[in-house]
Structures are given as C-alpha cells and as structure tokens.
C-alpha cells in the first residue's frame, strides 16, 4: 500500500518536475516569469490529442511532434512578446502581465476550437498491461510516462552541466552582459531557451493528459500554480530545485489524497509552500534572487 503510493507519487511528481524545469529555465536564463507556461502545457496536450485522434498518428510520432509544436508556441511568445520587452528593458512586471495575456488568449483559443468539455485520448491504443514488482502494480502507461519525464530531465541536466551550450546558458543565467562580451549569441540562446522550456512544458501537458486521461482548456492554470510552488520550493531559477520541488509536490499531493482526502490536496501542498517560505525564503537551493544586468 505504502510502496504503491510512493510509486504513484514519484510518477506524478516527475511530471510536475518536468513542467517546473521548463518554467525555471526561463526564469533563470531570461530572468522572466513566463506565466503562459500553463497555457503551453495545455496546448501541448491538445496538440498530441489532435495528432492521435484526428490524424491517427501513432503516439510515438504524435508525442515528439506535439513537443516540437509546444516549443514553437514558446518561441513565438518569445519573439512576439518577450523580445520586445527585453529590447525596451521593461521592468519585471511587464513580461508577467503580457504572458498572463498570452495564457488567457491560449485558453480562449482552445475553448473556441475544442469546446470547454474535457476530452480524452483513445486509450484503447495503449497497451493496458501492468508491470508487477512484488505487490506493487505499475500500469505500463504510467511507467512510460515516468520514464520519459525522468529521461528528459536527466538529458537537460546533462546538457546544462556537461556541454558547451550548457556552459553558455549558465553564463547567461549569471550575467547576459558578461556572456555577450564573451561572444555568446545571447539573443539566439534566449530563443532556444524559450523553445526548450516550452517543449518541456508541453510534454508535461501531454503526460498529465495521458495519466488522468482528461484534457481541458482550463488545465493550465492549476498546473501553473503548482509550477510556481515547485520552483519557489526549490529556489527560483535553480534546476535541481525545480526538479526536487516538483517531486515534493507530487509526493505531498498523493499522500494528502491517500491519508486525508482529495479536497485537501492543494491546501496541503500550498500550506507546505507557505511553511517553506517562512523557514527558507530563498527556497531549498536558492542563493538569492540577485543577478547582474
């Protein structure tokens, strides 16, 4: 029973972590809180749904295509909104407000195109076998979802830690200006970051859509709140922090549902967030929220 819940918690938490990872990358590298990340999450889920149920693509093609589509939505938001605000050296508040606008637009668009009702994946297409480990049962789908989330996170951590691109991104995260003086094409890497972050966010949307088998135009907003909670728990802009924050939220939610009741799910996770902020205002890994221009 407990072991089963731990498996569920890790599974949910890993998807939250994936979502939070994209969110924190944008904050860390662009220095912007992109409040349309939840909207991208939702559009990613719809893109996969459409590709699978209307274009009858197998899911192993539909998922990568939907990931790329999500990335392109993020790139578009960067080029149309964030880039202009960067050029004007707008205050931190402006990108937040502008991306709230983008999120509202995406929600209305999805409502107009697909209706307000929740939609479902044709899950017959998935193998409904279970993995059995002792007395723990893991549906194959859930195992796949968790594996994909974890692999994507490991890939991102590897890129950031071990590659030239990752070095350049970390340089920008510390100081875009110092990075530019080294000949790093900062603007181009801002675009790339927006793309990657949105692709991760969209993937989280697909995976949450699959695991709850429900997709709605309104699924982005609550996820955005969880994302904010996860990255604050972990320390703004910190990749390890976002991953741990996401996992932690997943664990908190699953245990709240198991031992209290589902109504207390959000109350518990945000209550923990509140306590965390009292104890460590900078989050688990946050050094401080300062950076040079």
């Amino acid at each position, binding site marked *: 029973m407990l072991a089963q819940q731990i498996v569920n918690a890790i599974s949910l938490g890993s998807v939250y972590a994936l979502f939070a990872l994209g969110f924190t990358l944008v904050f860390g590298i662009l220095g912007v809180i992109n409040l349309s990340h939840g909207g991208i999450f939702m559009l990613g889920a719809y893109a996969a749904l459409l590709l699978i149920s209307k274009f009858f693509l197998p899911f192993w093609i539909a998922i990568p295509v939907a990931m790329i589509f999500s990335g392109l939505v993020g790139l578009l938001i960067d080029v149309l909104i964030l880039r202009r605000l960067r050029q004007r050296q707008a205050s931190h508040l402006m990108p937040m407000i502008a991306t709230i606008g983008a999120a509202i637009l995406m929600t209305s668009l999805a409502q107009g195109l697909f209706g307000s009702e929740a939609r479902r994946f044709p899950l017959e297409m998935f193998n409904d076998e279970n993995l059995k480990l002792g007395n723990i049962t893991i549906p194959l789908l859930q195992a796949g979802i968790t594996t994909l989330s974890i692999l994507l996170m490991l890939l991102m951590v590897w890129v950031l830690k071990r590659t030239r691109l990752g070095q350049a991104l970390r340089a920008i995260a510390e100081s875009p200006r110092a990075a*530019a003086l080294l*000949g790093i094409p900062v603007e181009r890497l801002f675009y790339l970051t927006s793309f990657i972050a949105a692709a991760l966010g969209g993937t989280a949307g697909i995976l949450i859509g699959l695991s709850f088998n429900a997709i709605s135009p309104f699924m982005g907003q609550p996820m955005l709140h969880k994302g904010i909670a996860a990255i604050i728990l972990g320390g703004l802009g910190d990749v390890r922090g976002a991953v741990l924050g996401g996992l932690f939220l997943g664990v908190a939610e699953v245990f709240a549902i198991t031992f209290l009741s589902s109504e207390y799910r959000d109350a518990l996770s945000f209550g923990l967030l509140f306590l965390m902020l009292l104890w460590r205002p900078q989050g688990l890994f946050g050094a401080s929220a300062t950076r040079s221009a």
Partner: protein
Amino acid sequence: MSAPLLKLDQLRVSYGHVEAVKGITLEVQAGEVVALVGANGAGKSTILLALSGLIRTLSGHVIWDGQDITRWRPHQRVSSGLVQVAEGRAILKTLTVLENLELGAYTQPGKPDLEAIFHRFPILKQRAGQLAGNLSGGEQQMLAIGRALLAQPRLLMLDEPSMGLAPMVVGEIFEILREIHLQGITILLVEQNVRQALKLADRAYVMETGSMTLGGTARELVDDPRIIAAYLGG
C-alpha cells in the same frame, strides 16, 4: 599612415535624455597601444560598451578593419577579434575558472589552447577547478585577461584593469599588458591610473564629460601641464 584598425567617427551615445558620449572621433592603428583617460563619468566605459555592441549608438560610425560594424551584434564583433575586458572584469563567479576560460574561446573553433594561458598565468592552473568567485581581485583580473586572449583578439580593449588592485598587482597587470602588446596584439586601454597608462601607451586621448579635450602621443601628454595638473598630481 595606413588605414586604422579601428576608427570611431562622430560617435554619440545617450542613456535616455542624458548624452554620455557627444560625438567622439578616435583612431587606433594596428600594433598601437592607445590609452583613453579622463575623470569618472567622462564616458569612457560607454565608448567601450558601444564598441562591443552592448549599447546602441545614437549616431556616428564604428569602422573596424575597413568595415562599418556600427550595427553588428556583440557576438559578431567578438568573433572578428574585437574583444573587451570589461570594467569590474565581468567574471562569471558561479562558474569555475576552467569554465570561464573555455567560454573565452566560445567563438573559436576547436579546442582552446589552455596551456598557453596556464603558462602565462600559473595561478589559474592551480585554481582551475575552483569557482571563479573565490579568486582574489588580481587573480580575477588575470582570469579576465586570459579569457579574453582565448578569443584570439586583434584589438584588446580593457576598461580600468587596475581598478581596486593593490599597487604591486597593478604593476604585474601592466607588465602582462606590455607582453601581450609585444606579442602583436593592439590595445585600447581605458585607465584612471594615468601615469601607468601613459608609460605603456603610444598615444592617448583625454575625455571630459562626453567630449574629447586632448589627444597626442603619450610622450607629449606626459609633459603637458594640463595633464600634469589634472591627472599626474604635479
């Protein structure tokens, strides 16, 4: 005289309504060391930032090796050999010394020749694995210079490399600049330490509140009563 390596033509830069650089014309010939001196707030750093493409110019032109680069992006300028060691050194403190050096060669294809840098700055080799934020001021300046050299500069611009350093370390830094120059790299040096700067430089320009007030060979300027009164404490 041959065409200059770098020429600023009537360059104007403003921050909002404040015009920080009011029509500056300046030349650097290949092989020279040119110093740009002047009081705090004169606009020296603004000129270097505009040369690196980090702030937009209001009007005027930057001609680099015969090409008008006024609208080039910062990374294009670095790739073409116009490299700056910025004021305050712009060290990436959360990265290691080694990573800072590797990023210095970001625009260069292939593996960076770190050994040459470690040979010149042995302390950087000892500290390669440490976070650059833990280095002393002088070590950070060496890292900044070593890192800039890895970008294969044809013109190295330095903004107050002696700032905040103990006098002995300042001497060391200027000795390094002398060697770099002997190696064939052209230097544009912004300094408050006018005495040291004029010892190293072939020519110098003097700025005051956004305008050029004086220019000439370093030899002439050292003996100029205006310079002696204002900067050399004579």
